[in-house]
């Protein structure tokens, strides 16, 4: 189910995001917190960002570009961006 298929709240989007990120990147779900750094927590290299973009599009139906990542440092930044793109 995509976030746009049935209108989800931002809290629901955040919880779903924590689920698929923890599963895909094999990271403890409890470390995916708004104040934590996204790159460091998920241990992303430049190639991994492509996987992240694919995951976001498949799970949330949100398209991200390289430019978008310039404003993302923490998961909180990421949730705010996704919320804006989903008009939540």
């Amino acid at each position: 189910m995509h976030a746009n298929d049935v209108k989800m709240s931002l809290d629901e989007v955040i919880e779903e995001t924590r689920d698929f990120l923890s599963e895909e990147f094999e990271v403890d779900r409890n470390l995916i917190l708004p104040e934590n750094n996204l790159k460091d927590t998920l241990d992303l290299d430049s190639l991994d960002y492509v996987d992240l973009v694919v995951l976001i599009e498949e799970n949330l139906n949100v398209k991200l570009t390289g430019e978008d990542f310039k404003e993302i440092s923490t998961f909180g930044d990421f949730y705010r961006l996704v919320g804006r793109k989903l008009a939540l």
Partner: protein
Amino acid sequence: MLVPKEAITQYIPHREPFIMIDNLISATTERFESDLFVKEDNVLVENGFLQESGLIENIAQTCAASFGYLDREGEGEPKVGFIGAISKLEVFGLPTVNSTIQTVVTPMHQLGNIYLVKGESFMEGRILLGCEMKIVVTG
């Protein structure tokens, strides 16, 4: 056909004996297609079959030739790229010497200079190998 094998080195940085593509048949931003006749003296042939590594390199060179062709069409110079990662690899069969394979590549995502593509190679309509590949384009 967009680029015959006699001109393919104008679009890829590879040189003999490591050219794993013959003709670039089509290249749009949505789909690339090429073919390759498997010669007995191909360096990646073993025991009469082109090996998995040859099929993977063929997919990568199909990307290289297509990106090169599209760059030229856009009046730019072809850029050098390399394989960043390979995933979801499935091998169903290997082509024999003296057979021709067709390869289809579909660009799926782009993030900056990294492209995620899906590549599949076929022989007589039967799939031989499929994978996803991250191609990093430099320059």
